[in-house]
């Protein structure tokens, strides 16, 4: 089937590399850091590009994926609404090393903002209970 595109639409540019479906391959996937430790589940994605409900002039570059989001954004994804940009917890897309049945990050989880609740609970509660740093193996 070689159906011609309507003349007003530019043809899809050729894409190098793999095609990923955001809904199928990225959303709600587990993200692991470079040691294989779970960091978070991808709660939402952040795209660059024109704001909502504005006129898009011709020749505007396509939006690109800038970050994986986590934290309170999960609540707004379920119940609606949108947190202000300053409240989003981001994992920059450049930190992503591989996308498979899990998303592998190329950085340590300790350096990410996404891990602050885990670190807070570890430092304030769990590590203070005797045996909290004991290796079970």
């Amino acid at each position, binding site marked *: 089937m070689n159906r011609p595109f309507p003349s007003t639409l530019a043809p899809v540019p050729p894409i190098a590399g793999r095609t990923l479906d955001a809904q199928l391959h990225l959303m709600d996937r587990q993200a692991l850091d470079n040691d294989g430790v779970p960091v978070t589940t991808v709660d939402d994605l952040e795209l660059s590009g024109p704001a909502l409900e504005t006129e898009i002039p011709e020749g505007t570059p396509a939006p690109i994926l800038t970050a994986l989001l986590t934290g309170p954004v999960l609540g707004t*994804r379920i119940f609606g609404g949108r947190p202000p940009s300053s409240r989003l917890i981001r994992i920059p897309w450049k930190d992503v090393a591989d996308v498979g049945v899990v998303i592998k990050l190329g950085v340590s989880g300790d350096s990410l903002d996404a891990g602050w609740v885990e670190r807070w609970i*570890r430092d304030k509660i769990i590590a203070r209970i005797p045996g909290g740093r004991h290796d*079970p193996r």
Partner: protein
Amino acid sequence: MKRLLGVALGVLTAIGGFVDIGDLVTNAVVGSRFGLSLVWVVGVGVVGICLFANMSGRVAAASGRATFEVIRERLGPRAGLANLSASFLINLMTVTAELGGIALALQLASSVHYLLWIPVAVVAVWLVIWRVKFSIMENVTGMLGLTLIVFVVALFLLKPDWGNLAGQALAPAIPGEETASSYWYYAIALFGAAMTPYEVFFFSSGAVEEGWSVKDLVQSRINVLVGFPLGGILSVAIAGCAAVVLLPAGIAVTSLSQVILPVAEGAGKLGLAFVLVGIVAATFGAALETTLSSGYTLAQFFGWSWGKFRRPAQAARFHLSMIICLLIGIAVLSTGVDPVLVTEYSVVFSAIALPLTYLPILIVSNDPQYMGEHVNGRAVNVLSMVYLVVILVASIAAIPLMIVTGAGS
């Protein structure tokens, strides 16, 4: 030789780990009221749990993903959260029932009131989760749980009329003084007791804990396919003992002391000692499994670091959530609510919630992206579809039957 030992250990653990407070109470209640006329449900439940555990173990081994990660990915956040809420609450109810079961068994052994045993039981459960290696925890409770074989021994020592028992089992009929709706209500309860969702969370997460790969699938299949049916025999023996001693005496089981009464009559003091060890081990083991399952479900849904193979400090939210669950268990039990009653409700709610976990696992175990060449075979899929229907019917019928029968009373 070492491999053979591993298989033997796995099978024995599966037998000992099959029975929990839900199986103990429900089978005894059913035996004392309906004789062996509901024994076919145990068979249906055992085949179901074999199928379900086999699928979720295979998903975990082939993809390295545990049940609730898969549920969130497949259902999305909204349906996933609804599923998490239902599964988590029912699991919490089961944690409470198991903790109460430990305390009741210790009361029977010591004559100290069970409310005093509850803090002891909770601290012991927490210490094991905090400190003990996963495989040791599994094997010790499973092995000690094997002492429940005393129910089988007691059934033989009671010298029942085998022909009569076989007749009840093979030609099921509703006893005269019971209604059809309570018969079917208890059928669902028994099904829920055999096919509890926490077993599947635990089984698939345990596969990740122990680092299973595809190579270990054969052994896991043997553990399940041999261990669970043999565990089912223990369930039948519990019902059988109740049917022989309690049914003719007109005693309907409402407490744990009545569950073990037939063992005391058949096997004497020694039998009693064995059954008490067995019940403490079985409920303790199940309390560990359900508490871990509550941590697993939360951590897997939100993507936290989890697992007993990590230091607690490296899975901080996972450990904190389990501590909170245990504290909630104490709070509920200290209101003085009857743990046996909590158990009876928890098995029925398990049956109600079962489709929520069964369906996503069935879908993913057919997805080559996760499973590669290890997708379900045709025979497994046919059986799975039959069970999907059974599970849906049980789930939908449970609440109307609960209302009609006044929860079986």
